[in-house]
């Protein structure tokens, strides 16, 4: 430990981070968009906007709508594609001393494998985060992440074809998130992140149209935090692999709730739209919290929840 401050370093399975605060995929672009406002060197890591094998234009607008204490989005996984990312964005990101976690998705199990293979040997990629909350073309558009067996097969494919530590991002839109968590763990995932957005919708009562062109979208923001926290707590009790907490974290107090409930790290997402410096503020807030209470290592807080 350097200096007198608390030790913020955490290990999430094979992935070592300088602090437990990551940016959530889709809310921080490729890092570049926020770099004028945030020193990326001070973040635990950047999880980049979800990538697919080929570029994708995404859904027609309107793609977002505000809801009470949250927002719905149906971006449609718009992205530049893996190749462009490796050429244009990754080299730029490598200048920073922060973990780069590449979020990937596919339209078939095979495509997930191709994505993992495409990232094999990619310098400066610390881990892969696998988005299983997208439609499985072969299963009529049902999301991969709602089926434990298919989630496990996606995980196996990414592990088999790639060479990076694998974090699987779980969907909350299931009956029991522990079932998928256990299946993915058995398949060999190194880490889990949860939760992805909760599916929701909103209607314009004047036009009687859905407020999103896609009709439904993913709910994020502080509105979903209690749900996310509960699911993290459930999953931490159901698996051995480390869990990263995501969902409506706005400040360091929110982050602490997740750490105490057993998450080894957190991802900060929608908060960036409210305060671009949210992730960094949370790093500083955690440091202050530990300092004020004489906690030597932030890791000492993980899983310290006292249940009656």
């Amino acid at each position, binding site marked *: 430990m350097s200096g007198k401050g608390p030790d913020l370093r955490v290990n999430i399975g094979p992935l070592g981070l300088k602090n437990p605060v990551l940016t959530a995929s*889709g*809310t*921080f*672009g490729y890092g570049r*968009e*926020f770099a*004028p*406002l945030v020193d990326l060197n001070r973040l635990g890591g950047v999880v980049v*906007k979800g990538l697919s094998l080929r570029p994708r*234009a*995404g859904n*027609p*607008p*309107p*793609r*977002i*709508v*505000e809801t*009470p*204490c*949250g*927002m719905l*989005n149906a*971006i449609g996984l*718009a992205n530049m594609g893996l190749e462009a990312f490796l050429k244009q964005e990754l080299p730029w990101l490598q200048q920073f001393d922060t973990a780069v976690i590449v979020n990937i998705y596919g339209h078939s199990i095979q495509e997930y494998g191709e994505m993992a293979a495409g990232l094999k040997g990619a310098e400066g990629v610390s881990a892969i985060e696998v988005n299983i909350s997208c439609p499985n073309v072969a299963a009529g558009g049902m999301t991969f992440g709602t089926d434990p067996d298919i989630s496990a097969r996606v995980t196996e494919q990414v592990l088999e074809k790639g060479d990076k530590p694998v974090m699987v991002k779980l969907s909350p839109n299931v009956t029991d998130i522990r079932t998928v968590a256990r299946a993915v763990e058995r398949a060999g995932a190194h880490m889990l992140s949860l939760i992805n957005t909760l599916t929701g919708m909103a209607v314009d009562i004047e036009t009687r149209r859905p407020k999103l062109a896609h009709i439904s979208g993913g709910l994020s*923001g*502080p509105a979903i935090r209690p749900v996310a926290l509960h699911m993290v707590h459930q999953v931490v009790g159901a698996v051995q692999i480390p869990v990263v907490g995501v969902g409506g974290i*706005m400040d360091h107090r929110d982050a602490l709730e997740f750490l105490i409930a057993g998450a080894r790290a957190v991802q900060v997402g*929608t908060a*960036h*739209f*409210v*305060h*671009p*410096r949210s992730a960094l503020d949370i790093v500083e807030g955690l440091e202050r919290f530990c300092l004020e209470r004489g906690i030597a290592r932030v890791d000492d807080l993980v899983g310290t929840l006292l249940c009656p």
Partner: protein
Amino acid sequence: MIEQDLKIAFNRRVAARTFLMGIWSPEMAGLSGPGQFVMIRVGPGMDPLLRRPFSIAGVEGKEIFLVLYQVVGRGTALLSQVREGDRLSVLGPLGRGFDGSTAGSDPLLIGGGVGIAPLLFLYRSLGGKGVTFMAGFGTGPDVVPVQEMGLEKGDIDLSTDDGAVGHKGMVTDLLEARLAERAGDVSTIFACGPPPMLRRVADLAFPRNIPFQVSLETAMACGVGACQGCVVKTSGKTVAYYRACREGPVFDARDVDWRSL
């Protein structure tokens, strides 16, 4: 692009549901160009959650920038309660603004409602002389007194739906009449307003090959190009989108798909 907690210099009602806010920030005032916007956090709580985008309506002195807004929902209602001396978190200036360098000798500015906000800034940056400025409003009490923004009453051709002030009808009627009179004179059209008005402007500008820059309003979350929430469909043959916050909010009108607006 900066994010700061800024002090409100004034926030006053200038028309029925329209307010003019002045915000202290020499940095922001210095960086801002016509057509650019800011994202303002309208309150300290979690609901409403997201920042609201506002066109920059001008710069006063070197220290204050202006925001002209209409109260349309909860966010703007909260904003209207803000008092002199209060502080608000502002992110900006953002986006690509108007390209005044191609305005030519006879630029024409046309705005609907608070859509005049970025045009007021543009008008002053173009120097005013030789610039035609047309603005349409709903009814008399909706008309924004442009003298508040350093313009003269005579600088602007007005229309209202009910004829309470200026021409009775659409502001695009004024444009149509002007073009019928001497179309060749208009070097560039700069427009901002509700989509039906903009479509009418496009219908008039395109057949005459008049260069046309349009500022488009969309729902936004991040304002910096990360979330891809604010997109506008491009006019290209393959499906593609521009981010209004980065590639816009001002577009060359030929680059966007008008049928999708």
